[in-house]
């Protein structure tokens, strides 16, 4: 006992009492992008990740890459916060629904999410609003709403914000039901289960499980492009360059 006590004490000092948990803030861009871009949010002591998700070809490709990103950063004792923009919201929702991995994701924060698909998917405004890529023509409301079970989020909460600002070429807002940011309707950005027009994402109507409005019921003057950084700003990751 006399000899073993110091050894026990030495071991006690050598073994960390808790494993270090790294926190990663994953940023996922929108349609026709391959990453989020150069401006990321930053939180003290955490690592911001510009997720390499290819949203130019297909949702299948993007889903696989999203899962690989989560596998890399959001397992073990790590914790992730996932910031998604536009069609990145659809990619994240689809990934959670199709994979069974219990990633450590605190929440998904979605800005102008195209989770419910865009009515522009069947119109001639696609290229101007979403960009010139193969996937842009296949993110319609029927595609996204039938593409996966949006209610199966692994129990992860998705906080959502939406804009109602004007975006050139402007006339496409007539195609989008209810309020919209020029690219997606609030039916999509608010996580509603139908495409019925909404005048705010606080409206009492069925939403996908665990989807909820955060910070504001609507940013009336912000268009789809303005909305990109808005959630990150709202959640404390940016103070400059915020709309």
């Amino acid at each position, binding site marked *: 006992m006399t*000899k073993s*006590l*110091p050894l026990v*004490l030495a071991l006690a*000092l050598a073994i960390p*009492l808790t494993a270090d948990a790294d926190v990663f803030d994953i940023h996922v861009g929108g349609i026709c992008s391959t990453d989020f871009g150069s401006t990321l*949010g930053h*939180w*003290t002591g*955490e690592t911001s990740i510009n997720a390499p998700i290819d949203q130019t*070809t*297909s949702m*299948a490709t993007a889903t*696989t890459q999203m*899962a690989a990103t989560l596998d890399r950063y959001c397992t073990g*004792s790590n*914790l992730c916060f996932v910031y998604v923009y536009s069609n990145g919201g659809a990619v994240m929702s689809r990934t959670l629904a*199709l994979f*069974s991995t219990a990633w*450590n994701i*605190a*929440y998904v924060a979605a800005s102008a999410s195209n989770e419910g698909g865009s*009515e522009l*998917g*069947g*119109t001639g405004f*696609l290229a*101007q609003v979403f960009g*010139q890529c*193969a996937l*842009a*023509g*296949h993110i*319609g409301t*029927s*595609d996204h*709403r*039938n*593409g996966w*079970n949006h*209610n199966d989020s692994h*129990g*992860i909460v998705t906080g959502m914000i939406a804009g109602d600002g004007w975006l050139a*070429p402007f006339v496409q807002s*007539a*195609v989008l039901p209810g309020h919209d940011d020029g690219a997606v309707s609030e039916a999509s950005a608010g996580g509603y*289960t139908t495409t019925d027009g909404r005048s705010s994402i*606080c409206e009492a*109507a*069925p939403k996908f499980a665990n989807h*909820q409005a*955060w*910070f*504001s019921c609507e940013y009336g003057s912000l268009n789809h492009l303005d909305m990109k950084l808005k959630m990150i700003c*709202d*959640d*404390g*990751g*940016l103070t*400059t360059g915020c709309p």
Partner: protein
Amino acid sequence: VTQRRPPPPAAAWPGRRSIALALGGLVVTATVWWLAAPTRLQTAGARVAPGDRSAPIAAPSAPAARAAAVAALPPPPATPYPATGTPGLSADDPLTAYRKANVYPPTSRPLTADQADRLHPGRRHETMRPDDHGAGITYLFTADRYFVIGDETLTATLDVRRDGVPIPVSVTQAYAVVVDPTGGSALRPAGGAVGVPTPPLAALDPGGPPPPRIALAFAPSGAIQAAQLAPARLGLARQAAIGIYLEFDHGAGRQAAHFDFQYTPTRGIPARFTGALRDTIEAGSLVIHAGVAVDIPGRYAIDCNLFDAADQPVAWSRFKGELAAGVHDADLVFFGKVILDGHARGPFHIGQLRGARFAPGLDPDLEQMPPFAGSYTTAAYPPDVFSDAEYDSPDKQRMIELLGQDSNHRGGAGGSAGSH
């Protein structure tokens, strides 16, 4: 004579000095740990009461408080979020939100009559919309289904109106294209000036609808135009997305339109429901074991809805797991607390039993199973066979622990602390 100091004992390590250093280090480490993480001795779920982030934490130097912390009562049960969401803004902190979102398992949750996405899978979502050029017409270009399997036929329809009244139009182009996710660069449009849609049809698919194009014949059907497509004639080997492209002349200009659907050829069907179903009660939950004949092994996602004796929706459930080739059961768990909280009474029956094989790396990566066309009714279980216990799992406890350690992000509660 110089008296030399005796040499240290042979057993120099660990000596008294080492022991003293080790003890000192342990005390310092323990003190730092105690000060930095006073909640670590609490049970995971008891760290922060839901909705009460300002709950006092045991003072580090107060033995009585420390003892209270160790013996803290478990947190009160979380009140689950309503199945169809909460109106207004949500201002729950992340831990509270997570607990409310996980009273039920992620894949076994309440179902209400207004959850159209769960009750009407495969329904299309196109709506009447104005034309691109402001010609004063509205149109709806859609179909009767999103999923087409085997020898089934898709019926595409075009409804064009002026002032709400159907008007005759001429369809100038109409064809189907098997979607190539790599895109057809040869047909990719150069892009139009802002405010002016790029040329019809090509503009509908910035990747460019690649050849071959399968011509479609639209013809008047009452007040609308309609065309049918039997994708089986395309001779596809596996799951495919197929796009329908159309251009019509409404008298004041031309309008292009497009939608996609998913097709599963007979030889690409990965598995079928056998029709063999049975139900059991396991750990206070209703489990429906659905027989599945698997041709292509792999990862499957199978969804099912549950209705009560009054035909009211009760719950949805989802099986996610690997299935080998052969006949197997996919176990669909309807969580006991979901049934009890919904005040549902049996016998229960199922609806909308459908599924798909998930094949990451393939495109499309979901291969559809033919939906179950039959019916199944369970035994009339009394309520007391179901458990009222909240869902729990190691994954859930790990998340609660991790969320309890984070203070930077406040989510909907606001006031997150960034670094700028």
